């Protein structure tokens, strides 16, 4: 049986350029009163700065979970993932890829870049918050994250 620890507040980094999806994610986290802090960056470059604490993100916390959208401007989500997993410090942070379709998921899967999980951005909000809740349950509550 897993021991239930005092819920630690974990920082979650959302790498997503679509404002609507960002808003939805915030709403979903709020809806479930998820105790974790959501940080948002709009592209891969900023994500890496955030994670390496460079540039404008010098004081950024180290997130315990990364939600990474596949479709990003300039550098794609998969490029970012590849770079993350090549960085000794960053490769331990679990990454969940957000894909828009089953087909896309298949393509991403074929890269086998060691993402921890894939979530298809669901068709509507009801399903979306369900997905977020499951992320919360699994990654943020049940599992001990290497933070």
């Amino acid at each position, binding site marked *: 049986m897993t021991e239930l620890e005092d819920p630690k507040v974990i920082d979650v980094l959302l790498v997503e350029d679509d404002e*609507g999806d960002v808003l*939805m994610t915030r*709403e979903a986290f709020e*809806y479930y009163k998820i105790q974790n802090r959501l940080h948002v960056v709009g592209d891969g470059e900023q994500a890496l700065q955030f994670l390496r604490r460079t540039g404008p993100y010098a004081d950024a916390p180290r997130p315990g979970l990364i939600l990474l959208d596949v479709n990003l401007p300039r550098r794609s989500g998969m490029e970012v993932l590849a770079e993350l997993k090549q960085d000794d410090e960053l490769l331990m942070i679990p990454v969940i890829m957000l894909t*828009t*379709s089953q*087909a896309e998921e298949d393509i991403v899967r074929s890269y086998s870049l060691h993402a921890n999980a894939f979530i298809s*951005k*669901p*068709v*509507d*909000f*009801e399903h*979306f918050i369900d997905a977020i809740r499951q992320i919360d349950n699994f990654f943020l509550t049940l599992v001990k994250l290497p933070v």
Partner: protein
Amino acid sequence: MTDLNADTRQSPANPPPAGTRDVRSARRVGADRAAAVAGSARRWPLSRIIGVALLVLLLFSLAAVTVGGWAVARLNGAQTTLAVVFSVVAVGLILSVILFAVGLRAAAIRPLHQLAAEARQVAEGDFGHEVSLAGPREVTDLAVDVNTMRERILDELAATRQANTVLQAHAADLERSNSELEQFAYVASHDLQEPLRKVASFTQLLQRRYAGQLDARADQYIEFAVDGAKRMQALINDLLQYSRVGRSAREPALVSSDAALAQARNNLATAMEESGATVETGHLPLVLAELPLLTAVFQNLLSNSLKFSGGKPPRIVITCTRDEPFWLFSFSDNGIGIQPEYAERIFVIFQRLHERTAYPGTGIGLAMSRKIVEYFGGRIWLDTSYTEGSRFLFTLPMPAETMNESLEDEAPDQQTPDDEIPKEADD
């Protein structure tokens, strides 16, 4: 003496140029020629005739010389000049005969031989080789005719080749157009999903956040908006799936239709249990197909039978019989049935026979099943003679390896209510 049947073929050392060789007709010509040659083997070739004639003439001349000599001996003295003249004439005769033979050979036989050799070369496929004109008129006439034939063959070949090129160009065009269309359907469906997701999600968010603060009318508006968005998503999803049939790079393989049916039943397990459905089926064969697609066909048919059961517990019967080179599957239920005049319409994408409120669904199930079955090389149709419900018949290719095997049971004998099927884990 040269034998006209001698083998002077030029094949290995001097092959005809690749572009003009028509292997099939060369072989056929060779076979016909061999038959003709065998038939005329008993006939004497020209050289032999002339040789024999020469021999006879020589013998006669010798005889004449002998008689002349004897006459000289008899007539001695006075008749000597006559005898000498006679002898000279005889020798001259012999010489001229020999010259005649040699001349004939050079003038007629060799050109004939030459013509024969060149004609054979053309027959073996070297249509570009022009036969040389030499020898007596009949031989040159023949050579001219051979050349004419050769030209005709070249023209026909060129025409065929051009027709082929045009056909291939058309086929390539069609393939490209098809592929573009599929690409378009795929991309359109894929890219349409994102804005739709926004519409559906935020309308729902609106509903959630402002539920208490809006009046009933507003709630109704939102309800319709969300419902519309969800239906559009279902349509797009189905369209996406439909357009993806046939896009996988997989080769058809040996698939157990038993396994496909079992998977389909498993996917619909809850619905089947709720409706109290029973499935009667014999042992189903191996076919050339792809498992996920075949599963989808069974699942579509099953799901339809469950949906259009008309309130009573669905009873589904699946059988399979031989119809070389296909297996013929029969899928029958005891539901509300389909009127014969709609037998083709039901297979059209998004065509539905009922109001949306009466029965749910986008109307893609049968269109999808048809596309899949046809992709495998089979056909699917409605059996309009069956009136106790609906019966669908479809064919799937029989794998060559199993053509001599038999189905254990071809008649339905097992009746397994669905809750007794052990639930397998999802793949």
